[in-house]
């Protein structure tokens, strides 16, 4: 379960203080597929990064399970992230000098799971990337890149996948494929949180959270 309590995040910029998030309160139950919606600059990614234990809030708390993740040490938070959270990004963030197989395996470097290689092969097969296993990111289509990123996110069998505009660079067919894979993960008991401003993800959502100007506008 994810609990977000009175969350606020303020950035100090040269132009002054920017309130990215303010008074955010909500809860996500295990097995949910939550879509964070809102226009650009509404604070979706900031909220996602805060839930991901990567961006310390100015005030408030984020509980993953029973733990306030920002009361953990940086090292523990990193270990927690490696064990429990998978990431999918709009820009894929594949390591350019590694092939697809290695890009998936790189996720195992922080947790050192014994079955990482076998599981990589399973994921490549499941996501239709076996023929592309030796290719580098520059040699892949956008859809293949995002599927490689999906495989990387799934490798450590996380409880939660956080996806930031995962379909933003994809055509409708590939977007649907990626969202379907995320729904499969949810069907297997995982929790999915997707930040997007497009409509495609909404049909997969069990719940939608609307953000505007850093404030929670609506829960549905």
């Amino acid at each position: 379960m994810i609990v977000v309590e009175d969350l606020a995040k303020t950035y100090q910029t040269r132009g002054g203080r920017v309130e990215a998030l303010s008074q955010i309160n909500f809860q996500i139950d295990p097995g949910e597929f939550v879509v964070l919606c809102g226009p650009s600059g509404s604070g979706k990614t900031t909220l996602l990064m805060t839930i991901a234990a990567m961006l310390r809030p100015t005030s408030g708390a984020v509980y993953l399970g029973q733990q306030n993740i920002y009361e953990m040490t940086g090292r523990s938070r990193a270990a927690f992230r490696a064990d429990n959270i998978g990431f999918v990004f709009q820009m894929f963030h594949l390591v350019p000098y590694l092939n697809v197989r290695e890009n998936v395996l790189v996720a195992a470097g922080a947790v050192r799971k014994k079955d990482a290689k076998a599981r990589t092969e399973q994921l490549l097969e499941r996501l239709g990337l076996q023929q592309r296993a030796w290719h580098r990111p520059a040699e892949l289509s956008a859809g293949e890149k995002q599927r490689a990123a999906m495989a990387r996110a799934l490798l450590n069998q996380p409880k939660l996948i956080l996806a930031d505009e995962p379909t933003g660079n994809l055509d409708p067919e590939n977007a649907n494929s990626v969202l379907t894979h995320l729904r499969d993960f949810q069907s297997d008991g995982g929790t999915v949180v997707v930040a997007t401003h497009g409509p495609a993800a909404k049909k997969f959502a069990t719940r939608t959270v609307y953000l505007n100007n850093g404030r929670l506008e609506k829960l549905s």
Partner: protein
Amino acid sequence: MMGIAKLIVKELWHRKVNFLLGVLAVTTAVAFFVAFHTAARASERETARLMLSMGYNLHVIAGEADVGGYLMTGVPDQTMPQEYLDKLASQKKISYNHLLATLDGKIDWRGMQIILTGIAPEVCPPGQKKPPMVFEIKAGTAYVGHQIAERFEVEKGQTIVLGGKSLKVERCLAESGGVDDVRIQCSLSDAQEILNLPGRLSEIQAVDCLCYLEDGDPVAILRKQIGEILPGAQVLQVKSLAEARAKQRQMIRKIFAVMIPFVVIACGVWIGVLAIMNVRDRQQEIGLLRALGYNASPIMFLFVGKALLIGVLGAVAGFAVGTVLGLEFGPNIFKITAQTILQPEWSIFVQSCILAPLFAVVAGFVPTMIAVTYDPAATLREE
């Protein structure tokens, strides 16, 4: 699983130009250093060789001795305490070597004026132990000059008596055409007894090795050095070509003393800039690794490991290039004539393999710290 070492190698291969430019920077710094030292050490060896080939060129005599008389006869008319030898022999950071103490005296032997010379075993200052340049004369034995041996039919194995002391003739010397033909040489202690001058020396001879270099005139430095140790002694030096070589070496050292730090700093900045460019290129990769749960230490090792590899390869390449340059151009710069004196300086290779990687890591330290402290959220946020 992907080890950090594998990530380093893969990244090097991917960004070959950045990597090769880094290696080139270290190679340049090391090559410059090695080339200079290879040639400079060869120059030092050549100077020492030249000095040795000339024999003892430094003469220390008693302060009150008549220099004119000494230069004409080769025998000082005054003596000095034997402790002077111990004082000179105990000095560090000095510019002389092969200390040979003698006691000379003109005596009448069987109606012939001869020179008796007592010779102490050659000694060297601390840390400058070298094979002796002259033979050692054992106590109770004598080496007899050609004229004396001819005139008195002295032969090897005979016993001769000098001032009441019996000495066994160890050798009769071949004709030299000089003062040695009318000289009998024995041990210093025997000569002191025969001449009734216990604990005294006539002269200390040495080789000015020109090995201690500091700014200034080498002869003036030498006189100052010995003058501080033996205030009551006179120092005479046989001028030599080696002195000019020493001055030239001083000048080249001065030039390199300015150039080496300049080249090393320039190469350090070069590596630093390359490392900064590399970190900037890899911001998102670093952010991703942090998001995947990698700690600061493996990320630091990604950059430190790369710097170490650049340093080691640069050291090896730099040593090879520097040695070739030193061997090729060193003889012209340092006026080295004996090619056999030029050789690779393997001790510098070991130093290079330790210092160059350290240098590369230090040069890339700031960029590495930037990489480690990147806020992963900031690099991955693309809203």
